[in-house]
């Protein structure tokens, strides 16, 4: 190192815009291998696609505000719901949760970075690539795929215009690349958690977020290859004339449904498990109590992983599935309520008689928990074969899974953003704007998704651009809710952008939280603890117990304050 360099070389690697650092914003547009840069890259790009998916959703709700198909053509509507689902799952939820994994896992376990930093950056840079590929399907002749995010054959292997590059082709390509990126990420996260924990951090001293990330990434490793195999066979059927899913050539379209749901049901757990992790991290902080039943909550995560792999046929109860298979999968599906219920009761017990601080993050957690209990009840209803045969493919299902995916998972993601924003940007967010965001989102979500359950029970089918006028009232309410959710993005974006630009400086531990990441300065230096990794001497969530988390804790607290 030459002594003529006038600035600390570490400044160059700091993930956040540091005044005076020469490349403070360009790093986010480069092949940077720092997990904290990659995390922010993931989250920012994913939030952009949240807006894209949200606009698609609002066009659909605009169409559905009247019974007739008047705003868009029904075939355009098919493309809209296909792209809405695909964008929200593959371009918003998976990437944003990988962003959380990147930001949180290394500091939480005291590691300097991920195990394979270059693999990590490569996994991220695939994301804009498949994002552009999917968006490009709006521009090809025939428009985007209209076969839904399930892409069931025979609809998904039709190519009426005869172009080799069509919407469905691009859809399969994007989903396959997304799968490759996710597997690269999963290998990285699992290896990092297994091998790079701080001294003294045994499995039962690992924060729950890391447990749930590990459980979720295990699902990715086991499930995604099956979807990839199914999608490759679909591509061959669509583009190269094979007969895997064509009955006339001896194939079977049901095989695709098995391949698809073997991954895509567990995929819900890939998204919800990290959010369970966020709930488990945040409730103790804002209730000032240790997490109730830490070990049981940790192990229940893997209970969910194992069960999630043997429930997929509940999506196929009405697909001509034999009765013994329906019964078997009804039971396994209902069993998932056990580990999930354990977690819900653990959170409620954590809140019980706690000193609740209703920050924006806590409000989103509480809202998400309430919504999740509602979604869990409708989930058990749907697991029941007779109910599912009655309401499957109606708006009841749409209402159910939006209550999971938006009202639970996205609420948890918002909570996580408000909670860790100060840590990784070094700036506090504005509580007033945050609470406005929460209020609008909570009301909008209920208004949007509760009437869907009702319309579904009355028999309104899903994936239709026009419907019987008797469903009009529920649909008007749902559409108003959707527009309210659109409005709710304004205070959120305003808050994030203005806080990052000129929000109040964040102290190292603004929420008085316990955890290795809170012993670091805000924002943490590029290599977190560098060579001075603390030795963990007690379990996480020791609120009110008076036991230090690490050896010589005062030293780390003082160091974080100095920086």
């Amino acid at each position, binding site marked *: 190192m030459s002594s003529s360099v006038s600035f600390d070389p570490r400044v160059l690697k700091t993930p956040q815009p540091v005044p005076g650092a020469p490349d403070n914003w360009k790093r986010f547009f480069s092949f940077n291998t720092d997990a904290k840069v990659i995390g922010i890259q993931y989250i920012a790009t994913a939030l952009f696609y949240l807006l894209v998916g949200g606009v698609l959703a609002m066009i659909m709700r605009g169409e559905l505000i009247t019974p007739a198909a008047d705003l868009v053509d029904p075939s355009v509507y098919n493309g809209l719901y296909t792209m809405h689902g695909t964008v929200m799952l593959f371009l918003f939820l998976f990437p944003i949760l990988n962003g959380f994994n990147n930001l949180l896992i290394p500091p939480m376990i005291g590691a300097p970075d991920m195990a394979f930093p270059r693999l990590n950056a490569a996994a991220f840079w695939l994301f804009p690539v498949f994002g552009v590929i999917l968006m490009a399907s709006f521009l090809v002749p025939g428009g985007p795929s209209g076969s839904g995010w399930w892409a069931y054959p025979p609809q998904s292997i039709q190519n009426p215009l005869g172009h080799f590059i069509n919407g469905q082709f691009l859809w399969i390509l994007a989903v396959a690349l997304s799968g490759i990126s996710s597997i690269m990420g999963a290998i990285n996260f*699992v290896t990092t958690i297994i091998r790079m924990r701080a*001294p*003294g951090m*045994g499995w039962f001293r690992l924060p729950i977020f890391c447990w749930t990330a590990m459980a979720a990434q295990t699902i990715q*490793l086991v499930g995604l*290859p099956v979807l990839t195999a199914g999608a490759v066979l679909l591509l061959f059927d669509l583009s190269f004339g*094979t007969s*895997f899913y064509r009955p006339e*050539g001896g194939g079977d379209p049901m095989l695709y449904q098995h*391949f698809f749901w073997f991954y895509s049901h567990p995929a819900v757990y890939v998204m919800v498990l990290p959010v369970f992790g966020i709930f488990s991290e945040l409730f103790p902080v804002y209730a000032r109590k240790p997490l109730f039943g830490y070990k049981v909550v940790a192990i229940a995560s893997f209970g969910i992983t194992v069960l999630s792999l043997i429930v997929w046929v509940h999506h196929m109860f009405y697909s001509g599935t034999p009765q013994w298979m329906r019964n078997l999968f009804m039971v396994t599906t209902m069993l998932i309520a056990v580990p999930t219920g354990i977690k819900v009761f653990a959170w409620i017990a954590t809140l019980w008689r706690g000193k609740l601080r209703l920050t924006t993050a806590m409000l989103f957690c509480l809202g998400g928990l309430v919504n999740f209990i509602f979604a869990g009840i409708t989930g058990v209803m749907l697991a029941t074969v007779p109910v599912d045969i009655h309401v499957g493919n109606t708006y009841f299902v749409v209402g159910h899974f939006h209550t999971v995916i938006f009202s639970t998972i996205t609420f948890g993601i918002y909570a996580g953003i408000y909670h860790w924003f100060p840590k990784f940007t070094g700036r506090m967010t504005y509580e007033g704007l945050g609470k406005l965001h929460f209020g609008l989102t909570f009301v909008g979500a209920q208004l949007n998704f509760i009437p869907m359950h009702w319309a579904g029970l009355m028999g309104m089918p899903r994936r239709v651009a026009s419907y019987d006028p008797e469903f009009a009232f529920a649909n008007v309410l749902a559409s108003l809710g959707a527009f309210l959710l659109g409005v709710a993005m304004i205070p959120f974006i305003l808050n994030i952008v203005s806080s990052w630009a000129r929000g109040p400086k964040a102290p190292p531990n603004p929420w008085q939280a316990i955890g290795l990441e809170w012993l670091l300065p805000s924002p943490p230096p590029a290599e977190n603890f560098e060579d001075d990794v603390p030795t963990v001497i007690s379990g996480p969530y020791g609120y009110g117990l008076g036991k230090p988390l690490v050896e010589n804790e005062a030293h780390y607290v003082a160091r974080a304050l100095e920086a």
Partner: protein
Amino acid sequence: MTLSSPLPADDPAAASGSQQGHANHTLTGFVIFLLSESVIFLALFAGYIVFKMSSPVWLPAGVEGLEIRDPLLNTVVLVSSSGVAWLAERCLKRQKLVSFRLWWLLTMAMGSFFVYGQAVEWLHLGFGLGDGIFGSTFYVLTGFHGLHVITGILLMGLMLQRSFRPGNYDKGETGVVAVSLFWHFVDVIWIVLFVLIYVWQRS
């Protein structure tokens, strides 16, 4: 899978990450990758078995079945190349660089022989990719496996080239161990494929 060796909660040395070298991470990550990759093949095997047992039409018109003699020779060569790769790895561990290169080259040659044999077989078959479910499964399964064999040969070439960098393998040979693992994986997959496709022809 990932929980097979939980570390004791109160043993700082075992639970520590900072003392462990990067090579260990690479192997852990690579084994996790192979486990994940094997699930793709498991899914394809499952699909093949379902089709074979349930499809009303299996062989396309005019096709009697598959010739087994040349593929068997191919199988023997590929499977024994795993042993040769193991010999190469052992030589490298004993710092015998020249004999490592020879055994490693022999492994590559045996792999290439397999690919060549497969290409010849493909060119002389009386059915194509579009000929019903039999043609579809045959070409996609053997082709996907063949792609892995070619990848393995290319990776071995990379490791061979690295062996000419002075001192490259002094500190360990993670890359060679990983490629060699990959090669054994490809061989095991082929044994299953051979049994499914060539041996199990009568239904």
